[in-house]
């Protein structure tokens, strides 16, 4: 394994969040009864013609601008010809020689903690195309059913350079892309419904070798876990093949999530000749400067810009900034929290969102959109930590209480449950005195040089204060008394 380098490129089909289809007026809503969202154009009746949906084009422009790509002033739709029952026209309208988006980059964070590193993945292109329908092979007594609701749904096919060197990088890329397309509002990212599906081109080569190995393409991976498992299996399979003296043949393979294995679908020899040619029913797609400028002006602040601002203006680490921009929902939650708690508390806000909130969401298995504590509540809580009303430990209790709906605000919970921190020195001093008097043994151990005994004494004071004593004051007073 160590002498092999893995090379991965990814093609993603992102379903564009348009109201109607890319070349017809039929709805794109998911889940309707079969063939109720297929009009004459989708059914490819004789004589019908495609008309391009400008909303789909805007999605492509948004994407191109978001990744710093070249948005082509002129691109061309082409026909990809093949026969299949769920492809009503006998060809798919796609883009071949002149795609709408060329180049661009996506920066991503791979790994966690100390092992985290930044990686830039270069994109080859992104092009507009229509989806096919669906073949249904069950419940038809030996026949197949065809549902054309999905036929003509707009897709953006996003193709990377072979830039990734591990399944972790591939997954990090897929996650970053997934976050981005949702961020800019061009795709709902629903992977179960097939709105975001990845094909991975995988090859291996001996480390140091300049040429790429022969690749195999794993089709239609619709979860990040499958993406990782499929690549890991495929890489090991290819290495085994080569080490056992066999050559890799270019092929398209499918991943079976049940067995965790990839299986050959077709070899290069069976590859279709798609007979691409420019679609004579559609004029070249012209995108002028004015259109681009308008779309640019409507773009939200992008993850990369936000990351730079979080680091530059809020003093967060690059890693934290990356985590907090993993999705627009997280970044919005974080920024709303900071808006209440104040920029001086940006770092604690980041920690609360990334650790406590994330942990709680995880425990309940819910999404940040369904968080039971609002950013306003969390910001209010952090304010009370900052002004020493409560300690960090008590704050965790208050957070849990807020989560369970035991109060509308941190202040209410603190008040109702009497969690206000004891900062009155006289009160703390009397608690310290009581503890010292009652724990002579610990005092003796401390004086004999056992540092641990000090912690035991702090614990005793906090216990006596029911956790509410200001920890710093307890520390200071204990030290002072023990030194007497």
């Amino acid at each position, binding site marked *: 394994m160590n002498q092999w380098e893995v090379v991965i490129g990814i093609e993603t089909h992102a379903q564009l969040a348009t109201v109607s289809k890319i070349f017809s007026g039929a709805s794109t809503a998911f889940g309707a009864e079969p063939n109720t969202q297929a009009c004459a154009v989708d059914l*490819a009746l004789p*004589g019908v013609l495609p008309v391009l949906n400008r909303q789909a084009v805007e999605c492509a422009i948004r994407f191109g601008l978001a990744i710093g790509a070249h948005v082509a002033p002129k691109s061309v739709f082409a026909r990809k010809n093949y026969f299949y029952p769920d492809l009503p026209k006998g060809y798919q309208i796609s883009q071949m020689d002149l795609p709408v988006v060329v180049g661009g980059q996506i920066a991503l964070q791979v790994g966690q903690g100390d092992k985290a590193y930044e990686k830039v993945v270069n994109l080859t292109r992104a092009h507009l195309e229509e989806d096919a329908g669906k073949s249904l092979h069950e419940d038809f007594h030996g026949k197949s059913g065809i549902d054309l609701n999905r036929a003509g749904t707009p897709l953006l096919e996003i193709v990377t350079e072979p830039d990734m060197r591990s399944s972790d990088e591939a997954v990090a890329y897929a996650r970053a892309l997934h976050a981005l397309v949702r961020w800019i509002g061009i795709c709902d990212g629903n992977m179960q419904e097939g709105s975001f599906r990845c094909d991975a081109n995988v090859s291996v080569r001996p480390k140091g070798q300049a040429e790429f190995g022969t690749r195999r393409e794993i089709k239609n991976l619709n979860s990040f876990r499958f993406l990782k498992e499929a690549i890991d299996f495929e890489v090991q399979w290819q290495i085994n093949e080569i080490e056992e003296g066999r050559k890799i043949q270019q092929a398209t393979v499918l991943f079976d999530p049940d067995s965790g294995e990839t299986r050959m679908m077709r070899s290069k020899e069976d590859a279709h000749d798609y007979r691409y040619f420019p679609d004579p029913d*559609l*004029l070249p797609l012209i995108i002028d400067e004015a259109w681009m400028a308008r779309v640019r002006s409507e773009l939200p602040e992008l993850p990369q810009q936000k990351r730079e601002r979080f680091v530059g203006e809020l003093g967060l680490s690059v890693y934290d900034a990356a985590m907090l921009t993993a999705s627009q929902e997280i970044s919005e939650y974080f920024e709303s929290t900071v808006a209440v708690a104040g920029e001086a508390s940006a770092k604690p806000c980041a920690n609360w969102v990334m650790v406590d909130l994330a942990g709680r969401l995880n425990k309940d298995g819910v999404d940040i959109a369904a968080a039971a504590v609002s950013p306003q509540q969390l910001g209010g809580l952090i304010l009370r930590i900052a002004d020493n009303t409560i300690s960090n430990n008590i704050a965790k209790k208050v957070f849990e209480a807020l989560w369970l709906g035991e109060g509308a605000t941190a202040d209410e919970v603190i008040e109702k449950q009497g969690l206000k921190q004891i900062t009155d020195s006289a009160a703390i001093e009397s608690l310290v005195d009581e503890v010292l008097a009652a724990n002579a043994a610990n005092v003796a151990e401390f004086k004999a040089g056992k540092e641990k005994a000090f912690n035991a004494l702090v614990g005793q004071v906090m216990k006596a204060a029911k956790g509410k004593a200001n920890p710093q004051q307890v520390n200071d007073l204990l030290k002072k008394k023990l030194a007497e």
Partner: protein
Amino acid sequence: MIHKSLKQLSQALAAKEISSVELSTLFLDRIERLNPEINAFVTVDREKTLKMAAAADARIAAGSAGPLTGIPIAQKDIFCAEGWRTTCGSKILANFVAPYDATVIEKMHRDAGMVSLGKTNMDEFAMGSSNETSFFGPVKNPWDRARVPGGSSGGSAAAIAARLAPAATGTDTGGSIRQPAALCNLTGLKPTYGVVSRYGMIAYASSLDQGGPMGASAEDCALLLNTMAGFDPRDSTSLERPAEDYARDLDKPLAGLRIGLPKEFFGEGCDAAVMAAVQDAIAEYRRLGASTVEVSLPNSHLSVPAYYVIAPAEASSNLSRFDGVRYGYRAPDYGNLDDMYMKTRAQGFGDEVKRRIMIGAYVLSHGYYDAYYLQAQRIRRLIANDFVAAFESCDVILGPTSPTTAFKLGEKSADPVQMYLSDIYTIAVNLAGLPGMALPCGFAGGLPVGLQLIGNYFDEARLLNVAHRYQQATDWHQRRPEGIE
């Protein structure tokens, strides 16, 4: 009544000399009597026709009639018409009833209130120059029933020539309006590409197909084009231009008109008798005040080969939807899916269609695309440029429509290349996207000869003017085949 012009019919309807129901019945009766021999119509539906006629009469009575309301017309069976069987001359669509209206159908019937007499025979998927490739059998030329009417709009042409309809629609991909018009002594116009919507017109070669009018005169064609033309948001290649009245310049004098005579159209390859009639027409135009100038279309000899790459390429893809899955013919017995596709298409398509699908698939396939398809596209540009240069020194271009008069049924059907050369003068016009017309200019051996006029882009009104003035000075277009009274 059956020989009246559209304008005269319109006046007769307005003056209540005849109702649309009576007029339509007159033509339906003629169809019933003559069509079994001529085979111009593949679908007639008396009930539907008379219902439309009654609706037109109501419109006329209500005073909301347009200039063509109530006038019957024959529709080429390439236009989808809701509730009408729409076959495109093919077995594969022999059972297909269209669930929607083509834009042309909508404009002519719903908007203009014209009455459909039925659907006319045609070469299968408009692939042919003789109407012999139709699944529904060949059409007979009313001028000589042993001869072809031309194609692919042969049914429309024969219907008008035999006065089974006062006028008809056609479509023209390489000459399919003009050549049958020429062979049947009619006037036909192929508009500039993009003037008439292609929505609902079953595609043969999308970048070349264009619908247009066929009739007894330029005036009839102008009135028909007024109802057919116009921007259609459902056709991305439709041109967004202000509406125009194509009849506005019909009577304009021709003094000062510069007629370009391409030397390539006056060389070898054309029957001497056809050429003599064309020369007579040139002399007539000079008498009408026009001047002539020699022009050159140096790449026109490449138009047939370029066409027979581009058109089949597009057709091979356009016809992929006829796969037996959703509508149309499906082979009765088959094994797996591939077997179903192969049997359905092998049984559903005729030889000429299969020939063009195979040529098209070949020229688009990996390794041949550059040598054939791209090369043909380059030639196409050269041909268009030739016309641009020619129009610098002339207003219209004139020549023969077809190198021969109507040929005998079966004479060329065994030799595709001979058949393809029948369109040698018309194809370049489609490749360039220009408007072109055919109009009667005499007879050779008792058979009609058609003159061709080619205009600059969007010069339909001028072409119609040039044709109309000629028809004011001659009576070729009023000659009738024997037995058609």
